[in-house]
């Protein structure tokens, strides 16, 4: 950039011949000034966001002595480097990862799909407003119910009204650990609590969909179900990306429901968050390197989801 500016300074003859030249120098300066500021801010933000991640990453590959002897964000020396902590973290968390995927994937997909269907029903068909409005109000009220408020009713529900442990006894007889009832409870609970926000997100999206296009499909002979299947659903891809990323991150990271419904990290069905919570803590103190390695490992699936749906996500957010 500076090169361009000096070039303009050195050749006044060019300036006089080029049309609009007198104004171009000050424009160039202004662009330089604002872009320098922009880059400074961008770099500062980059440093701000990346420092904790860098600190965590270098800590996770240090030996216990290196953690004490080196600064938090300095890389370990040749003697202080080890992958043992990652090995230990993966060993401890791998079974939890499996369990987490077992409920996070179905719960995410189900809540997105049902939310999309519910939003379609509340938006596209010309059903009367006084039927749709109260339903929508219920959905929106659902968004504002705090998790803490439902913890007791939730345990009551799963132990008294829907005792899965008894209903599914044939599964346990087949040799499956009965702790896995907790996984099914987590799926249903997360679908129920994710549904309101999913519905609202899809509804906003469908509200902006061309009404004439849907009407055109109806006149083309498509039933409500076919309109959803062939027109609305395929056009919802960007919003599905948003909802899938959002729901997956929420469900994967949630600790409260797992504590209530599965409760112990020793359980065969313990999700990754439950094991991670106790990883590297003992009476002797905290194993920082192990905790960092565990945190990074447990975060990998959410990272993968972002990368997988990133493009559609951007499209959905800006839609």
């Amino acid at each position, binding site marked *: 950039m500076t090169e361009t500016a000096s070039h303009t300074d050195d050749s006044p003859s060019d300036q006089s011949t080029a049309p609009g030249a007198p104004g171009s120098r000050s424009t160039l300066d202004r662009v330089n000034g604002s872009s320098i500021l922009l880059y400074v801010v961008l770099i500062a933000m980059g440093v701000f966001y990346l420092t904790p991640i860098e600190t965590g990453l270098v800590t996770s590959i240090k030996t216990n002595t290196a953690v004490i002897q080196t600064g938090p964000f300095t890389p370990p020396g040749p003697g202080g480097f080890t992958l043992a902590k990652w090995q230990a973290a993966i060993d401890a968390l791998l079974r939890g990862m499996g369990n987490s995927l077992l409920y996070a994937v179905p719960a995410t997909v189900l809540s997105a799909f049902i939310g999309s269907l519910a939003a379609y029903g509340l938006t596209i068909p010309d059903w009367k407003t006084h039927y749709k409005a109260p339903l929508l109000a219920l959905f929106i009220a659902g968004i504002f119910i705090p998790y803490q408020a439902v913890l007791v009713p939730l345990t009551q529900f799963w132990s008294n009204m829907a005792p899965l442990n008894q209903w599914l006894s044939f599964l346990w007889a087949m040799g499956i650990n009965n702790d896995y009832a907790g996984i099914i409870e987590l799926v249903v609970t997360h679908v129920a609590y994710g549904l309101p926000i999913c519905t609202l997100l899809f509804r906003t999206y469908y509200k902006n969909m*061309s009404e*004439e*296009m849907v009407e055109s*499909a109806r*006149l*083309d*002979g*498509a039933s409500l179900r076919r309109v959803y299947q062939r027109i609305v659903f395929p056009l919802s891809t960007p919003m599905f990306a948003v909802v899938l990323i959002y729901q997956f991150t929420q469900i994967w990271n949630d600790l409260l429901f797992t504590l209530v419904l599965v409760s112990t990290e020793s359980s065969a069905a313990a999700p990754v968050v439950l094991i991670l919570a106790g990883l590297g803590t003992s009476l002797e103190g905290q194993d920082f390197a192990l905790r960092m390695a565990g945190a990074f490992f447990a975060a990998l699936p959410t990272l993968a989801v972002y990368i997988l749906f990133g493009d559609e996500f951007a499209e959905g957010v800006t839609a």
Partner: protein
Amino acid sequence: MADLELDDVTKVFQDDSDEIVAVDSLSLDIDDGEFVVVVGPSGCGKSTTLRMIAGLESVSAGEIRLGGHVLNDVKSQDRDIAMVFQSYALYPHMSVRGNMSFGLEESTDLPGDEIAKRVEETADLLDIPELLDRRPGELSGGQQQRVALGRAIVRDPEVFLMDEPLSNLDAKLRAQMRTELQRLQDDLDTTTIYVTHDQTEAMTMGDRIAILDGGELQQLATPLECYHEPNNQFVAGFLGEPSMNFFDVERDGDTLVAETFEYELTDAVTSDLGDATDLVLGIRPEDIRLVAEATESHDYETVVDVVEPMGDENTVYLQFADVDTGGHSLVATTSGLRQVGSGDQIVARIPEETIHVFDRDTGVALHNRSLESEDLVEFSPE
């Protein structure tokens, strides 16, 4: 093959406590294969009428029948009606081929190869076979318009509904599509209802035009009947560009007295007027003759205020010479080759056989211009 009948069709929208009557007891009989243009200003209920025929709006009262069957409670998808929307409403995630086959796939049990054949025939008819594998987003407005038409034509429905299909096109393309649509409709011979606010489209395209205002039918007739023999002042003023000149007049015996001039009538006109005295005199701009000297009783001294040259003709705004009214009082059109300049003194001749007289309170036409003159015979429809 069937007639479409609208029988006292009414649409009332509820707005909080208010009731808004969008369409008021509208009756139309549309013959099989006929092209009817529904025209009117914004908010006259023309689109609502179309949407009721399509089944996209419920009917508050009255009946819509297609071939004798009542359509009121038939769902949109079962009506065998195709509609072309103003926004084209193409499915953006499907190719042109997908857009055109969608209707046949959803509404018929035709096998895939038969559908493909029909889609290709229709694409040939519309001269768009090279677009079949593109997405709507890759097409120009005019091409999208053709695809929207193709999507309707390929289904071979009982009725085409078109809701201002040409209004998103530029002027040149619009004129071209206008003729092409007429040609297509002639070939296909499918009953068509075409909604527009554009009076050129109304005049040029329809076998008959239905003029709506405030949800009520003002006139249903051939374009030339509506133009030359309007039922009322609204129709007279709506059709024609520049629009008809109107003057509020009082009848005094055989004379119509306006603020700025007086107009003598003969028995041929007075016999139509009854005993109404508050009247409106109407004269179309092209019926005013501009002459050099006042020789007849219907000649008036005027001063040219503004001239708008259109090339083929001039629109001339005139003021009566005696009275300073402050505004334009008379609009006339003359040949584009005629030299008329602002400030010129000129005589406007208002021939009696071309005047219209309306009742000022009801707007009803009491007297319309005579159509007996020989030069009109070749223009009359059919």
